[in-house]
């Protein structure tokens, strides 16, 4: 084992940090402040553990920690590399912000079963970090399933009829695709190659039949349906019945990004971008993802429920990322991976704002939000910045990653992808700007808020402002995340 400037087991500890908090949270259910203290303590420890590996990884190393062997030639294994670090940093830092927001939101609405809520949130974060640091496909699958199951109580938190329906849809989509497609694809890969460890050069032997590769690729793309590629996307808008912090962290960051991350891992670590490009498999990825990008943006235009509109926007943005990585060109991969972070900060801002509006006014529909900017100026300013980032306009981080992906499309000589990027950016603008415009600039007689509406509680208002500011910071310092992404294309 090589010497590293941190404990060998740091990746495992990072996974366990929030898992260990679960019993503590459960036991202090009677004292809400103590209970939330555990969440924050675990969050800070987790973030610190992840950060402690940062400089070592940035200098071009990877760190592997093997827990135990579970199948011949296959272990439960953690590997920390650039891509994993990027994702782990995003998820763990946003967990902290979301926890602040959760307190404001859950207490503001006096929700029931808050202890259960915080327990499963911590559990879900363990699974997310587990996926980020997985050293092989099997470990990743294990944490992927753990995430599906641990988020079910969060999605169905309200325990009403609507939640039951959404929960059914959620599990039906996620479990049926992972058991029905991803698992057999993984098994077949193992039988062909004898390994499931990620390797930037790809693991398939050069003489693998192209038909096999195509079938496996498609099974993997749809098998990790957390990424919401159409037609396996409709669990995501359905899952919006969850409390807003859940939608914010899980359905804009953790759960959906785990799907995208898994697909990204398979594309870069199992197939390898060299094979994708040389066997023209990247065209398949781009067509599937490109279709999703355009169609979901069109659907988003017609949604009146703000959270549903954001959900369809997420479906589109996830497909962006897959499109970027699927281009299988250096810049495309860097752009796609960086977009995981950029989109996360932008989209979570938007969800936070939607929730803040709901807490303050009880409004869920876009058509009821005219003039709200005058009443909740901070929230809507944050919303504006978030939407800039998602559309990809300066001065927000989203521009940087989008630009990289556009360059990547040119590098891969795929001009139809370029068109997809441009058209969808316009569509993004078309479904976000009217909300902002109406919030601030509608005529007085149309404004729907006669009475003074206070801003949401400070716990709800502060997080979107923070994430909006970070979105802007990322425009000037994209290297925070892009440097990690760049590590993944070294030597390919």
């Amino acid at each position, binding site marked *: 084992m090589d010497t590293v400037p941190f404990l060998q087991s740091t990746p495992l500890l990072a996974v366990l940090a929030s898992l260990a908090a679960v019993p503590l949270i459960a036991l202090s259910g009677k004292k809400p402040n103590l209970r939330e203290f555990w969440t924050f303590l675990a969050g800070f420890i987790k973030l610190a553990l992840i950060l402690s590996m940062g400089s070592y990884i940035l200098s071009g190393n990877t760190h592997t920690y093997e827990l135990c062997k579970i*199948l011949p030639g296959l272990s*439960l294994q953690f590997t920390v590399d650039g891509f994993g670090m990027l994702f782990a940093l995003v998820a763990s830092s946003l967990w902290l912000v979301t926890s602040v927001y959760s307190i404001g939101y859950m207490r503001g609405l006096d929700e029931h079963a808050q202890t259960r809520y915080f327990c499963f949130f911590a559990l879900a974060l363990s699974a997310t970090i587990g996926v980020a640091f997985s050293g092989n496909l099997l470990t990743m699958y294990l944490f992927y399933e753990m995430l599906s199951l641990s988020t079910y109580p969060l999605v*169905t938190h*309200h*325990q009403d009829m609507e*939640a039951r329906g959404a929960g059914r849809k959620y599990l039906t989509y996620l*479990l049926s695709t992972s058991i029905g497609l991803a698992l057999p694809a993984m098994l077949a890969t193992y039988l062909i190659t004898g390994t499931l460890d990620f390797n930037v050069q790809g693991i398939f032997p050069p003489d693998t039949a192209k038909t096999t590769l195509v079938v496996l690729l498609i099974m993997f793309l749809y098998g990790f349906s957390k990424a919401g590629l159409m037609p396996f996307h409709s669990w995501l808008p359905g899952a919006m019945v969850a409390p807003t912090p859940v939608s914010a962290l899980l359905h804009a960051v953790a759960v959906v990004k785990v799907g995208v991350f898994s697909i990204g891992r398979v594309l870069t670590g199992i197939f390898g971008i060299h094979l994708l490009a040389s066997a023209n498999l990247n065209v398949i990825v781009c067509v599937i993802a490109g279709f999703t990008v355009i169609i979901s943006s069109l659907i988003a235009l017609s949604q009146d429920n703000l959270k549903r509109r954001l959900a369809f926007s997420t479906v589109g943005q996830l497909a962006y990322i897959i499109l970027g990585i699927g281009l299988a060109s250096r810049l495309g991969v860097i752009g796609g991976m960086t977009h995981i972070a950029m989109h996360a900060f932008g989209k979570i801002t938007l969800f936070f704002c939607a929730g803040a509006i709901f807490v303050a006014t009880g409004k869920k529909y876009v058509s009821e939000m005219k003039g709200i900017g005058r009443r909740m100026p901070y929230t809507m300013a944050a919303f504006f910045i978030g939407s800039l980032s998602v559309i990809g306009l300066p001065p927000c981080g989203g521009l940087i990653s989008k630009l990289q992906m556009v360059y990547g499309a040119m590098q891969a000589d795929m001009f139809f992808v370029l068109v997809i990027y441009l058209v969808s950016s316009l569509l993004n603008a078309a479904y976000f700007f009217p909300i902002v415009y109406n919030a601030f600039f509608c005529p007085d007689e149309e404004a729907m808020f006669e009475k003074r509406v206070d801003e949401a509680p400070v716990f709800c208002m502060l997080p979107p402002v923070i994430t909006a500011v970070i979105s802007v910071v990322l425009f000037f310092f994209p290297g925070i995340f892009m440097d990690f992404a760049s590590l993944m294309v070294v030597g390919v």
Partner: protein
Amino acid sequence: MITDQLPILILAVPLLTSFAITIFARKSPILAFSLLLAAIGTSFACSVGVLRQLLETGATIHYHVGNWQPPYGIELVIDHLNAMVLVIVSGAALLTAVYSRHTVPAEVPDRFPGEKIPERATNYYTLYALLITGLLGIVATGDAFNLYVLLEISALSSYALLSLGRGRAYFATFKYLIMGTIGACFYLLGVGYLYIKTGSLNMADLKGLLASSILLDSQTVKIAFILIIVGIWIKMAFFPLHGWLPNAYTFASDTTSCLVAPLMTKVSVYMMIRLMFSVFSVHYIFEVLGFQDMVVWLAAAAILFGSVSALGQTNMKRMLTYIIVAEVGYMVGGTWLGNSNGLTGATYHILSDAMMTLCLFMAVGAVIYKTGDSSRESMRGIFRKMPVTAVVFLIGAFAMIGIPPTCGFFSKWYLVSGALEAGHWGFAAALLISSLINAIIFFRIIEIGYFPDFDAPAAASGDHGHGAAVMAEVPLTMLLPMVLTALSLIAIGVYSNEIITGLVSRTIPAGLL
């Protein structure tokens, strides 16, 4: 040395205890329970001892009963395969024995209003000890005829136990008795044919004799094999010979279900593997006989039939019995795939399925113990009322669905690998479809446990079903074995590599790729 006597002690202790219970504990159910617990505990300890001995030396243990030399005397032969199965059988029986402390008095009451009949519970424990003797004997013996005797011991005691159930238990058990007897007769007839041809009943001896080229083509041997295998299939409820199982197990008392459901079918699967590869040979079964493909398709059909039938049940015990029918298909199919991955999956699944089934039957039994109701609706509010039972049920359900790191995932992994390797897509698809159907079956129940009843008028008030739910768990004697079983599901999964390289892979017969 006492350690040399461990193999016979595994069987002798429960056998003698069953007499002891009848003689000494007629008036005292508590004493009967204690004797049973001690006997099965001893059996379990001896099984573990034998397993350790085997792992240390690596050599198969031969024990000649009464020091009569084989092939004439009865021989106990313990290799890696049956050492593992012995530990499973005695372990599961031990857990169920602890569990039975409170359930047996409730289900087999030793007193009616006005009169006290302590013999009833005592009789129950006697039969329990006899059943376990039979099952352990089937596993330990190296003699084909002796196996028949022990098969009948276990079968007869299980008929008696199953008939002590509720509702239509008598009728269901009678049906099982008829079918079980036919199965045993088939087996006996097959062994008889082999004896006519070879003049031997010792398994190792038979294997050597059957390898001669004259006997390979013999019609008599072929018919003997078919009779034996069909007999065993009836005993293990392999589709389409499963008709007796669902009713017999559903109407049985819950303790009996916990005891019989995980063990009887698994021991039958063990019998099949033992006879296929220790009496007949890989060459004979997969090359001389020509119906390998048909059996695997039949197994696929069993899986689909069992899963779909389970989907249609509202009674939870009945649902579990159909899942057993599907699981039997897993193991038969895996064995008949004719490659090492398939057989590894099937053998490992004996272990994991026994524990999974035990876990689920115990959890359901606990719910029935508290609510008196075996329909799915009895799970309403389970997460608040009986949180430990609910979690145990959840882990069992995850194992059945095959979610890592529970053991169900790994058996499925090997079975599907074997199916893909053999190019048997139908079987692989059946396995995956059954996983998906299991997911639907169990999440439907979990949903009932988690959500309030929207049809009931009380739910409209928006109390999220948290109204009068008060925590009311089952007694510790039931919780403890349940929790241990649930934990074992995860342990068996996490240590699957050790189990498979240390035990299962040593049982793969030479000649299987």
